[in-house]
């Protein structure tokens, strides 16, 4: 196993993911008749994003719906092939490996989903949900499955005697644990958690977050932790990336980002998030909504909502630059 610290475990370089609406015959005919070129149906869900995750790190990814954070997570986990850009696993370009080898490498990245109801097959017993993949990938034999699953269930805090049951017989918190056991079954090194605690009740959320942190220490896991909940990300992440409309606008160590945010969007997010410690405040929200990713604004994508927007912001897209060591922000204000 490669333990060199300078090579990131997973690296995405200039990755984009575009989704195109399929063009049907009528549309093609209309375009031909009107002689309009057409790529207006293309969504740039992720647009030129680079990120590196080091072994043992917890990287938080925050943003609102439509920011592209889930798509980026799926690209990182290999569920979507990037439209352009490369994915490197310990330095090796994943998309250039032979298919069989890539599949094996990719097992090291597993995903945990938001909805503990929709992400488990209701017609399979827990033993098969958790134990199917390791048998298919020949990590264990079918005869070993029951013992293997029992051990995994105990590891995530479930009673092993429940493995003959179906998902509907479990509570939301227990289902979240089953999803985690399923991901752990193929001995991953990196877990991509997409809103993994968002659907859980407050008291259960703390239990599952504790489990994530416990597993991190026990199995030396690395996480890409995607969440809209800033409090959760602040607690669990070492480093935080903020996405807006398909781009990373700011990235910094967690404490630095939350105490000294640089990008106006990050500031707006932090300001808008309610916190327990503040009583009967006057909410002073930022106006407007995130524009459609079908037609992102020109220049800085945040400029239509930004309180500090200046003429340059609508003309020129700011690059992600290091403002203090380790703290990157994409904002023209930093140019003074």
């Amino acid at each position: 196993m490669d333990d060199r610290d300078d090579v990131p475990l997973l690296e995405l370089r200039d990755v984009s993911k575009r989704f195109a609406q399929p063009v049907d015959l009528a549309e093609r005919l209309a375009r031909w008749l009107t002689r309009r070129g057409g790529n207006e149906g293309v969504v740039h869900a992720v647009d030129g994003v680079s990120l590196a995750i080091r072994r043992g790190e917890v990287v938080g990814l925050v943003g609102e719906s439509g920011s592209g954070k889930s798509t980026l997570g799926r690209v990182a986990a290999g569920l979507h092939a990037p439209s352009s850009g490369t994915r490197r696993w310990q330095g090796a370009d994943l998309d250039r490996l032979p298919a069989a080898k890539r599949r094996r490498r990719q097992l090291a990245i597993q995903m945990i989903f938001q909805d503990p109801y929709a992400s488990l097959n209701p017609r399979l017993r827990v033993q098969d949900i958790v134990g199917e993949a390791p048998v298919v990938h020949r990590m264990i034999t079918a005869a070993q499955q029951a013992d293997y699953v029992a051990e995994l269930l105990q590891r995530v805090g479930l009673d092993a005697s429940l493995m003959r049951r179906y998902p509907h017989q479990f509570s939301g918190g227990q289902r979240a644990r089953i999803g985690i056991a399923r991901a752990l079954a193929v001995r991953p090194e990196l877990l991509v958690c997409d809103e993994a605690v968002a659907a859980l009740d407050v008291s259960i959320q703390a239990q599952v977050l504790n489990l994530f942190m416990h597993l991190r220490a026990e199995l030396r896991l690395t996480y890409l932790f995607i969440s809209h909940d800033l409090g959760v990300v602040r607690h669990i992440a070492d480093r935080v990336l903020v996405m807006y409309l398909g781009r990373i606008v700011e990235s910094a160590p967690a404490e630095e980002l939350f105490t000294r945010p640089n990008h106006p969007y990050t500031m707006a997010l932090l300001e808008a998030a309610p916190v327990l410690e503040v009583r009967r405040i006057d909410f002073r929200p930022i106006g407007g909504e995130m524009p459609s990713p079908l037609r992102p604004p020109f220049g800085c994508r945040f400029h239509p909502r930004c309180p500090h927007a200046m003429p340059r912001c609508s003309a020129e897209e700011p690059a992600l630059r290091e403002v203090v060591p380790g703290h990157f922000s994409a904002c023209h204000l930093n140019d003074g």
Partner: protein
Amino acid sequence: MTRPDDTMQPTLAVEHLRTEFAARGGAVTVVNDISFTVRRGEILGIVGESGSGKSMTAYSIMRLVDAPGCIAGGRVLLNGQDLLGLNEEQMRRVRGNRIAMIFQDPMMTLNPVLRIDTQMIEAVQAHQKVGRAQAREMARAALARVGLPSPEERLLAYPHQFSGGMRQRVAIAIALLNQPDLILCDEPTTALDVTIQGQILHEMQTLCRASGTALVWITHDLAVVAGLADRVCVMYGGRIVESGHVRDVLERPRHPYTAGLIASSPSRNRRGAPLRQIAGAAPPPSELPSGCPFRTRCPHATPVCATMPEADVQDGHMWRCFHPMREPEGAAHG
């Protein structure tokens, strides 16, 4: 409808409300002996997890509980008048008129196949004797009040043409149409992004202050209540286990459940350290223990908890617990 004694009488007084669902093996109580009041211009937060009965409390106030559920007892006084004594026709004149409700999913309010103006004009004319043109003008004004840009154009749109945040604003505008005395909000911002949530909280707060509308804000999010509400009720297992001014309840929680909820919030824990957690999961209403509903998960429970504790009240701060918390920060013992 404003009365001279408005300052004395609460807009809404719920007294010993009890809602049950018929089930195999007897009735299941989902709202159990709930009492609270909301005054003019006041915002009351009701906090609880799924299954705590917080939504059923709102449905019971609106008398929207369908069979096999039924309201088994208590009173719901709106400006002194018991809603539970009204017949269905009288109750229909109250809903959408004196009390409005906003749901988590705005499509519960909106009809997907009708234009916004059609729906809003209908909502006005159902309760007020006004012409179509005047009703339309009221609809336009309501949309403008909730901060919807270009309301004139928006009136002609269909719900699917709006984003989630915009739809929720339209639902709020519809709730405001007849200037209700009370608005019940059931997790209205839970599905929305934080910046949009911030906008809606701001608008509700401003509207409430300006119009004197009483607001009941049901949520699972203590942080929203902390910033928005004047008073809060904490529900667990169909009961209010603690209530009082937001400051008292959040800074000096007395019930171990409230204390546990607050202590498990990441902001109350050292970064990266294990979160203090409440053990176990809330049982379904059919499997609640006798006595205090929290006792099976409570670190302080003793045999006496098998009977329901009486309410203790100190300066408007109420809790129901035999072993209330003493620490000022209410840190739960691990």
